[in-house]
């Protein structure tokens, strides 16, 4: 029961979001430096729990992801001055992480700031890393029971990027395969659909922290216990889980989608040809679907769903998928020739 655990932390270092977060007009401002100091205390606590606990910290930056620190990479020990008042491994950890975060943030050029945050890169990197440290072939010990228990904590400040839907889902499934728990700590921004699913599918906890002054306590109570202890101490779980997906055509997050029966690609509106597997759909179906869903949202405006799904469903009343189309005239007649030309183009 009392075996070593490995923690991979993924930090969302979006300059824009942290800037917003530090502004004083936000109800509970939180600067990056305050956050890092809380985080370091948390990481030290993780390392304090057991001597052979291991740690890896990844940073997700605009357009790239980097490994900030890991217990296995040899650090330049000389750079850290000896200090009688601090436990040396903590000192090394603190200094290295602070330094690398600073370096990385410095290196962001102005053009890059708006690039999407590479959470996926950081996530896949941490999975590769966990694969390495938990792979019995790489470890000296042959006994699989002695390998550390891995888990991932994602600290996220940015909203979802729907373009990374497939990659995030693939990462989640590989985490499931590796038996890695993914915990999500969400700061400030609205809930992330994908990360919610990540935590749910891997048995982790998803916690949205509204009051950053209690951040450390949240970290300690919810994210410090390794999975083995969580059977004994209940860790808060999320309430509602949104199983929405992002469509392949416009990367909108949809709750009702049109799915290709051959490859299961999701589209936000009826399309004549599947963009993924080039399957052509019968015209009959297309007409029927278009008729049934005249209010298909135009690309670019994701249908938002507020907290209570019951009163936010701007659906048409004609919801008889198998029935005869009632409002054929509502369907866009111009779509037909387009569909044809598409067909011939892909031939």
């Amino acid at each position, binding site marked *: 029961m009392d075996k070593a655990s490995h923690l991979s932390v993924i930090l969302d270092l979006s300059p824009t979001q942290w800037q917003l977060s530090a502004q004083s007009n936000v109800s509970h401002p939180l600067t990056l430096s305050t956050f890092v100091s809380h985080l370091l205390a948390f990481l030290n606590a993780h390392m304090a729990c057991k*001597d*052979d606990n291991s740690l890896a910290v990844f940073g997700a930056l605009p357009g790239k992801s980097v490994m900030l620190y890991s217990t*296995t990479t040899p650090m330049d020990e000389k750079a850290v001055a000896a200090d009688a*008042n601090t*436990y040396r491994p*903590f*000192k090394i950890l603190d200094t290295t992480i602070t330094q690398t975060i600073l370096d990385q943030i410095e290196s962001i050029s102005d053009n890059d700031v708006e690039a999407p945050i590479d959470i996926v890169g950081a996530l896949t990197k941490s999975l590769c890393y966990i694969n390495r440290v938990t792979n019995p072939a790489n470890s000296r010990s042959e006994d699989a029971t002695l390998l550390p228990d891995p888990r991932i904590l994602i600290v996220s400040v940015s909203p979802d990027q729907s373009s990374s839907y497939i990659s995030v889902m693939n990462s989640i499934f590989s985490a499931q395969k590796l038996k890695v728990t993914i915990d999500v700590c969400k700061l400030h921004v609205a809930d992330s659909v994908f990360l919610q699913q990540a935590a749910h599918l891997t048995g982790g906890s998803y916690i949205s922290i509204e009051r950053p002054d209690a951040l450390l306590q949240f970290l*300690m109570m919810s994210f*410090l216990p390794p999975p083995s202890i969580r059977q004994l*101490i209940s860790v808060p779980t999320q309430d509602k889980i949104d199983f929405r997906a992002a469509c392949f055509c416009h990367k909108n997050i949809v709750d009702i989608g049109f799915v290709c029966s051959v490859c299961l690609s999701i589209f936000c509106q009826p399309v004549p040809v599947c963009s993924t597997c080039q399957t052509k759909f019968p015209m009959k179906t297309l007409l029927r679907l278009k008729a049934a869903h005249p209010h298909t949202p135009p690309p670019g405006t994701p249908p938002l769903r507020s907290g209570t799904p019951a009163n936010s469903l701007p659906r048409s009343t004609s919801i008889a998928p198998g029935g005869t189309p009632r409002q054929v005239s509502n369907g866009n007649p111009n779509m037909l020739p387009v569909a044809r030309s598409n067909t011939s183009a892909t031939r």
Partner: protein
Amino acid sequence: MPSVQPPTEDSASSVEGTSHALLAFLQSQSQNTLTRLYQKPSSCLSIFRLLGPLERQLVMNLLWLESAIPAPTMAAWVTSEGKKAYEIALSVLSRLHVLPQYTVKLALNVTFKTSLRQAITGGGTSGSFGAPAEKDGKHPTPSIETLDTYALERWETILHYMVSSGTGRNPTKPSQGVLYLLQRSGLMANAHGPSLQITSSGFQFLLHNPHAQLWELLLQYLRMAEERQMDLVEVLSFLFMLSTMELGRDYSVEHLSPTQTAMLEDLRDYGIIWQRKPSSKRFSPTRLATTLTSSSPPLPTSSGSGADGQRQGFIILETNYRLYAYTDNPLQTAVLNLFVTLKSRFPNLVVGAITRDSVKKALANGITADQIISYLTTHAHPQMRKNVPRTHRTKQKPLLPVTVQDQIRLWELEKNRVKSQEGYLYTAFASQADYEYVLNYAKQLDVVLWESSAKRCFFGSLEGHPNIRGFIERRAAGKS
């Protein structure tokens, strides 16, 4: 290859139970002592690491709270399966005075809280993690290999001395302080003449894993420290400080208290610290010291037997009781010799067999069958471990051949087959009636161990003798 250090220190440490040997010792200390101990961040950190996982989590939950929280609030966090473990954890913490009065409100001991916070966040002026020595151009810091070799040599000298004390060979003697400690702890005794002989608890000691051995000696040292009028808090905090130091670094002796300076000599003898010369102003902790509160193996690889061999175990045991030990370490060979009949020795291999006689000899020395089995399991060759997960049908296939395990246990039971009991044999009764009359009386007292009416005698236990004797005398007196 760089990888996380696997906690190779075997199942034996978890078999010991979740609670560390030192915790029991700490729990027996007074609140005053503990509070003084908690003033050092390094001590708090080390004690924290010795706690069980649930206890650690509880401490962490409470560490950053300024005010006490009501007990029911905390209990609400615990799932129904965890209730029992939670209660145990609370009582352990309270006995350590980390969590006083846990029935109503939960709040950490203020001293402990401040120190542990300081340990985690750094800072403060306690200097409890050891003052690093100034760079010295003349004498460079010893390399980690030097330290390992030193620690290993010291430690194996002690063990070797113990193993071979009975055999008449004369190994290198450890220093006087070590000998005194061994004697005091009851691991060795001078039963016959002036020379020290290993005792049965000494034999048991040899089969423990190095981590347990080290702590057993240190606990003994702590008890001795009390008698030697040393300040226990000073001794303990020095040990804890050592455990948080970094391998391969020099530390200065300047900030040590007189007690701690005195300890340097003892610890040097045990191989826990290294000093260039006794008067040196600097010392380096060895791996024995830095792994005191961790589960990584406290001893580096044994001399010359290869990097992986020792760490992963070296014993292959076959179902035909043959045992192959891939080692060239005389200590390991000597320990094996305790319960194995060694047949042949090769440069890196010892072949032997577990026989009735060899196990009997071990049992006679006070070693139990379970200890033999656990030693064999702990040091089993990786090749033996490999076979375990492959059998997917039976969930838990034992590491060692079942026949051998059972036979060792049976041999132990064999020892218990004959039970001796002192008593008296009553014989030469004049008549059958006399015999039965006395026998009946003895039976009423429930002291008859054996009877034979054909031979007209019975055997009564020692405690029944005065009564029976009195009874016979009275009867004889009445007859005459």
